[in-house]
C-alpha cells in the first residue's frame, strides 16, 4: 500500500432534512486511482465539495500528507494541490479558452504565456485545444478538455473528476483513460466519481462506495463483479425490465429529411433528419450531450415548428402544429429538464398535471379550469406511478428528482398517447425509480404506442430499444436493430473520437 496522500476521518455534513455525509472515512494513496461510487443522492458531490473547500464539514477532519487540511475556499484547496474537473457549471461561454483556464488558476501567468502553456500541456496529454476560441462554441468533449487542462497546469497532487465520461463517446472515454493513466504514473492521485461500474473496474485500483450518505465499503473494484458492485451501491437486487417480443405494427411517426435551425445561439441545428417509428416499437436515440437532442425533442413535441409535411403522425402532416395540436392527435413528450421545462418548479403537482393534460383529459370547459377534476387526475398519477409525496398540493420543486420524473412521465403516459417522445428519462434518478420508468415505457409500447427514447445512457438504450440510432452534430445515423450491437459499434455511430484520436497518435 502506498503512503496516504489524503486521509478523510469521520466527515459529516447535514442539511436541513438530510444527512448528506455521515461519518465517512477513507484514504487516497499517492498516485492512486480511487473511485467514489454511489447512486444519485448518495452524497458523492457533498463529499468532494468538502475536499475542494466549497462546503465546510460539520464534523470530522482531513489530513493531506500528514498535515491538517481544512480548506475554507477553493483557492486554498488549489494552493494545496487539489484540483477538480466539474461535471457541470464551471465554464464561461462568452470567455475564451485561455480566460477560462486563467479563472481556475491561483496565479495565472500573463494571457500570452498562458496560451503557449495551454498548447504545450494539451499536446503532451493528447487534448488538443485552441486557447483563443470562445468556450460557448466548443463541443462537450472539448469543454471537458478545458477543465482538465486548467487542472493540469497547476501540477495537482490530487485531481478530482466528477462523472467525466457522461459527456464523451466511448472512443473519447478510451483516450481520457490513457491521459488519466499517464497522470497516475507520474504520481498524481485521482479521485474518480462515477456510477458506471465497468469504467471503474477498468480504471481504478480502489473504490469507496457510498449509499445514503454512509460509506458501505472500500474495495478493489477489479476483484468484484459489476453485479456485486451494483448491489453494494443500490443495496438491493435489481431485476432487469421485462418485455414481451411482439410484432411491430404500422408506422405512427415519420420524419422526412428535416433540417431546422436551433432557437438557441449556442444550440445545434438539425440536419437532414429522417426516421420512422412503428406501433409497439421502442426507438432509442443515442448521442453525447449537445448534439441536437434538445432540438430534436422540441421539434417533435411541437415547441419548434417544422414544415408541415415533413413530420407525419399516423400519416397526417403535423409539422405546423404546436404542442397542443399534436397532443390532440396523440403525440406527447417529456423533455429532459424536469424543473422548468416538463414541470414548473413553484407550482403544485395539481397545476403541473394541468400543464400538458388540459386538452386530452378534458380538464377545462370553454377555457375554465375544473380544479377538482385536475386534482383527481394528479392523484391518479401519484397513485399509479408510486410518486412519493404527501399529496398533489405539494410544489414540484419539493419532490426528489426520481419522484418528479415518475410524475412527469406518468402524466404523459396517462394521456394514453399513440406516440411518446422522452429525453433522458432516467437522468439523475435513483435506480429503483429508473427501473419503474423503463418498465412503464416498455408497458406502453406493449400496448401499441410508439416510444422514442433519447438518452445519453447507452446501457439504458440497449436494454429497452428495439431499434437504435445516434445523433452527432445534429445529424441522425441510420437506424439499426438493437440486437447484436456492441458498445464499439454505437461509439462509431456517435461520431467516434473526432480529433482526439489523431492528437494522441501524434504525441505518442
Amino acid at each position, binding site marked *: 500500500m502506498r503512503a496516504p496522500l489524503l486521509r478523510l476521518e469521520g466527515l459529516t455534513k447535514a442539511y436541513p432534512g438530510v444527512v448528506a455525509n455521515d461519518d465517512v472515512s477513507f484514504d487516497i494513496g499517492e498516485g492512486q486511482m480511487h473511485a467514489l461510487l454511489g447512486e444519485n443522492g448518495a452524497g458523492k458531490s457533498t463529499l468532494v465539495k468538502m475536499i475542494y473547500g466549497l462546503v465546510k464539514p460539520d464534523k470530522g477532519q482531513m489530513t493531506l500528507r500528514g498535515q491538517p487540511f481544512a480548506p475554507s475556499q477553493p483557492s486554498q484547496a488549489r494552493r494545496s494541490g487539489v484540483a477538480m474537473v466539474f461535471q457541470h457549471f464551471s465554464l464561461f461561454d462568452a470567455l475564451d479558452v485561455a480566460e477560462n483556464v486563467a479563472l481556475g488558476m491561483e496565479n495565472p501567468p500573463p494571457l500570452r504565456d498562458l496560451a503557449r502553456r495551454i498548447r504545450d500541456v494539451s499536446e503532451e496529454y493528447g487534448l488538443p485545444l485552441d486557447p483563443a476560441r470562445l468556450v460557448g462554441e466548443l463541443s462537450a468533449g472539448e469543454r471537458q478538455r478545458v477543465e482538465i487542462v486548467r487542472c493540469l497546469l497547476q501540477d495537482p497532487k490530487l485531481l478530482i473528476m466528477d462523472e467525466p465520461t457522461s459527456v464523451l463517446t466511448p472512443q473519447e472515454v478510451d483516450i481520457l483513460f490513457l491521459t488519466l493513466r499517464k497522470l497516475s504514473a507520474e504520481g498524481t492521485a485521482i479521485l474518480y466519481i462515477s456510477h458506471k461500474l465497468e469504467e471503474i473496474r477498468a480504471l481504478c485500483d480502489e473504490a469507496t462506495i457510498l449509499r445514503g450518505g454512509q460509506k458501505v465499503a472500500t474495495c478493489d473494484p477489479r476483484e468484484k463483479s459489476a453485479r456485486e458492485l451494483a448491489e453494494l451501491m443500490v443495496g438491493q437486487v435489481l431485476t432487469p425490465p421485462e418485455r414481451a417480443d411482439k410484432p411491430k405494427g404500422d408506422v405512427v411517426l415519420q420524419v422526412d429529411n428535416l433540417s431546422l435551425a436551433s432557437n438557441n445561439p449556442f444550440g445545434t441545428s438539425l440536419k437532414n433528419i429522417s426516421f420512422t417509428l412503428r406501433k409497439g416499437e421502442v426507438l432509442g436515440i443515442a448521442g453525447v450531450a449537445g448534439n441536437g437532442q434538445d432540438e430534436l425533442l422540441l421539434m417533435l413535441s411541437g415547441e419548434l415548428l417544422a414544415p408541415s409535411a415533413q413530420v407525419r403522425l399516423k400519416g397526417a402532416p403535423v409539422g405546423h402544429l404546436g404542442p397542443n395540436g399534436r397532443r390532440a392527435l396523440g403525440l406527447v413528450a417529456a423533455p429532459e429538464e424536469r424543473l422548468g421545462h416538463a414541470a*414548473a418548479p413553484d*407550482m403544485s403537482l395539481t*397545476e403541473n398535471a394541468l400543464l400538458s393534460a388540459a386538452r386530452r383529459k378534458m380538464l377545462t370547459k370553454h377555457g375554465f379550469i375544473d*380544479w377538482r377534476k385536475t386534482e383527481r387526475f394528479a392523484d391518479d398519477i401519484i397513485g399509479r406511478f408510486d410518486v412519493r409525496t404527501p399529496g398533489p398540493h405539494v410544489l414540484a420543486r419539493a419532490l426528489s428528482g426520481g419522484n418528479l420524473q415518475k410524475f412527469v412521465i406518468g402524466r404523459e403516459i396517462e394521456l394514453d398517447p399513440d406516440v411518446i417522445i422522452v429525453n433522458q428519462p432516467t437522468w439523475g434518478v435513483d435506480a429503483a425509480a429508473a427501473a419503474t420508468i423503463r418498465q412503464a415505457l416498455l408497458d406502453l409500447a406493449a400496448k401499441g404506442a410508439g416510444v422514442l427514447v433519447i438518452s445519453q445512457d447507452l446501457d439504458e438504450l440497449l436494454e429497452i430499444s428495439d431499434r437504435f440510432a445516434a445523433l452527432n452534430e445534429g445529424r441522425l445515423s441510420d437506424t439499426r436493430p438493437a440486437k447484436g450491437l456492441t458498445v464499439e459499434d454505437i461509439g462509431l455511430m456517435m461520431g467516434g473520437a473526432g480529433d482526439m484520436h489523431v492528437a494522441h497518435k501524434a504525441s505518442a
Partner: protein
Amino acid sequence: MIRLEKRKEPSKFWRIANPFLAVVLTMLAGAVMFAMLGKDPVVAIRLIFFDPIFSETFGSYSRPQLLIKSAPLILIAVGLAIGFKANIWNIGAEGQYIMGALFGAGVALAFFPAPGWYIFPLMVAAGAFGGFLWAMIPAILKTRFNTNEILVSLLLVYVAERILAAMALGLMRNPDIAGFPGSRDLRRYDAAHNAELFANTGIHWGVVAALIAVIFAYVMMTRHMLGFHVQLAGQAPRAARFAGVVPARLVVICLGISGALAGLAGMFEVSGPGGQVRIEFATGYGFTAIIVAFLGRLNPIGIVLAGLLLGLTYIGGELGQMMLQLPGAAIQVFQGMLLFFLLALDFQTNYRLRLTRGARA
C-alpha cells in the same frame, strides 16, 4: 452564524403579513422623516392615515376623495399585475393613462356641444383604445424585434407627456378663452361628464369600472386557462412553451389589457375629477400603481386594499400640505419607502433565517 436558507415552500403567513408589516414600518420611518423636517411626527402620521376618513372637520370632504383617488390606481394596478405575473413589465402605464385621456377627451371635444347618450360610451371605448394603442407599441416592438418592453414603455411616457402638452396648447385648447392653455371643461358638458353617481360618495363610472376589472381579473387568474398560462409563463417560460403558450401572443394580451385599463383610468379622470386636458393633468397614478400592484401581491383583492391605502396617502398628503406645510414630495418618498420595506420583508416569504452554531471556530 446567521444563514439564509431557502424554504421548501413559500410561507403563506408572511406573504399576507408582510404588506401590513411594511405599512407599519413605513409609518415609523415616515415619522422619523417628519421629525427631521421639524414637524410633529404623531400629528403628521395621523393627518395622513387617519384624518382623511375619521376627522370631523375634513372627513366630509375627503371621504369621497378616497374612491376618486383609489379607483384609477386600482384600475391600472389590476392590469399591470397580470403582466407582472407573466414577467412582462409594462412600466409605462402613465403614458397609456395620458393617451386614454386624450382619446376620450378627443371624442368629447369632437362632439361638443351636441347632446346624446352615446357620447359617453364612445368616450369610454376611445379611452380604452387609446391606452391599448399606446401599449401596443412596446408589445409589437417586443414581439417583432425583441426590444425590451421596460425601456420602451417607460420612454413612451415622456413622449406621451409631450403630446399632452402639445394638445393642451394646440389642437384641444379651449377656443373660447384666449391665452390660457387647457381644453374645455368636460364637467360642464353634460353628455361627456363622468359625474358622481351617488352624491357625496365619490363613486363615478371609474369606480364601477375598477370593481368590474377586479372581478374579471380575479376570475381570470384563478379559474381560467389564460390566467394559468400567464402564471406559468412568468414562473417557467420553457414549461409554458411546452404547455402550448405562444409567448408573443401573451405579450400582446398582457400589454393590451394593462394598456386598455390604464387608458380607461385616464379617460374617467379627464371627464370627471380632472375635468380638462391640461399640461399638469398626469400626476403619477401610472407609477404609483406599480407600488399598488406589488403591495397587493399582484392579487386583485390585495390590489383593492393597497389601492385604497395609497389613495389615502394622496389625500393625506394634500391635507398635510395644507395643515402642516408638509412638502408634496414627502408623499412620494412615503410611497417609495413602502415598496422598499415590502421588498425587503419579502425575503422572509422565501427564505428562513437560521442561526447555526459555529461548529468550527
